[in-house]
């Protein structure tokens, strides 16, 4: 009888354990650089920077943000798929899309250089120049504040 009473509790605990294992995920950064946020929203204060290939253990996901130990990462910057990066063996067509990004293979700088040599009309120096133009976090926040565009509760 005593065992019968405990059974639902044990089952509930097991279900909880299974659920938390299912929610937990390893996320890998797939963009060159992204900001870890203290809260799950853009323009929330920075909690650090995460770079291409860095992995984090996530215990929860909140409206498109993965909660990791140091803060929150936006889902569009990471993958939850298992990623192997073996630089010695190389990455080929048998590799996943994400592995191609992390290994820098596929269409890459080497292919671009070869393409540029064949296409003299392509103006890569102008592309390099436009890529140097970027607005930093504090300038962007000032722009938003001044223009009445700052979301409620952001960057406090």
């Amino acid at each position: 009888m005593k065992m019968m009473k405990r059974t639902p509790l044990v089952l509930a605990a097991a279900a909880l354990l299974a659920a938390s294992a299912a929610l937990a995920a390893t996320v890998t950064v797939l963009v060159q650089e992204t900001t870890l946020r203290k809260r799950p929203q853009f323009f929330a204060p920075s909690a650090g920077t995460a770079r291409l290939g860095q992995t984090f253990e996530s215990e929860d996901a909140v409206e498109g943000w993965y909660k990791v130990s140091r803060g929150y990462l936006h889902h569009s910057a990471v993958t939850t798929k298992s990623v192997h990066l073996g630089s010695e063996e190389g990455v080929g067509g048998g590799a996943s899309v994400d592995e191609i990004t992390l290994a820098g293979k596929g269409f890459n700088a080497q292919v671009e250089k070869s393409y540029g040599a064949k296409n003299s009309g392509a103006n890569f120096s102008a592309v390099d120049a436009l890529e140097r133009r970027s607005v930093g976090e504090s300038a962007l926040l000032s722009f938003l504040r001044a223009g009445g565009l700052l979301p409620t509760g952001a960057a406090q």
Partner: protein
Amino acid sequence: MKRLFMIALAPAAFLAAGCAELQKMDMNKLSGGRISNNVDLTKVAKGVKALRKGVEEISESEEYYIGRAVSAQILGRYKPLNDAKINLYVQTVAQVVARTSDRPEIFKGYHVQVLDSEEVNAFAAPGGFIFVTKGLLKRLKSEDELACVLAHEVAHIAQKHGLKTIQTSRLTSAFAILGSEVAKNYTPSQLTQLTTAFEGAVDDVVNKLVVNGYSRDKEYEADHSGALYAKNASYDPGAMRSFLERVAQVESSGMSLFKTHPPAGKRMAELRAVDPSASYRRSTERERRFSAAVAL
């Protein structure tokens, strides 16, 4: 009791173990003697991954390099406007609406260049590259209209419209070359074949962006998504309609403004109403800085 506890915990234990533990399992016993324990299961798992097949399987970094080459072609045809103030202003507004899009994070971020052309047009290359002509900026009346135009371009990138114009055969050939376990650097022969496939992919996107334009469905989709991104950024999403209205008035006189876009009247007819967000409010500062920056 102990047995019941073990049964209940089994799913959790299985989830916790994960695929990394595959090689530790006694596969000979599990398979009834059909699979030897000498087989390295991690290598088997890696070997059975299917070859990449289509546009959806272009990686983040490959999209970036395709976008760079498309941009280099556009900047080979159009002269970039050498005006730091206006380029920085347009870049800032683009970063604002990109943050509220479906794809705020992209391999190396979003970048905008104003083109020194009287043509009225805008282009979005894969990988986050956006081009707006001086002629288009002259037709805008406010920062909210600029935000809607840029958000429309961000939508093309977020929804990978440029990549979807690449012929599958080009990718198939590139992926087949990559199928032979490429080492750190490509051999000259592999590089030649990859460059040919890359060149074809870039041509496909450039022709679609600069010559033919996207399909009407993709333009209408980008209009709607752009209005939503503008709304999310607390801009007036109705500014998309007010801009198109003025373009439609000009086009009604027989003059075609957007060479690679559907007529503005048709775009207006397809544009669904999007109400401003609760945090939207008019701003004299937005009016001031728009007038100061876009004084062409």
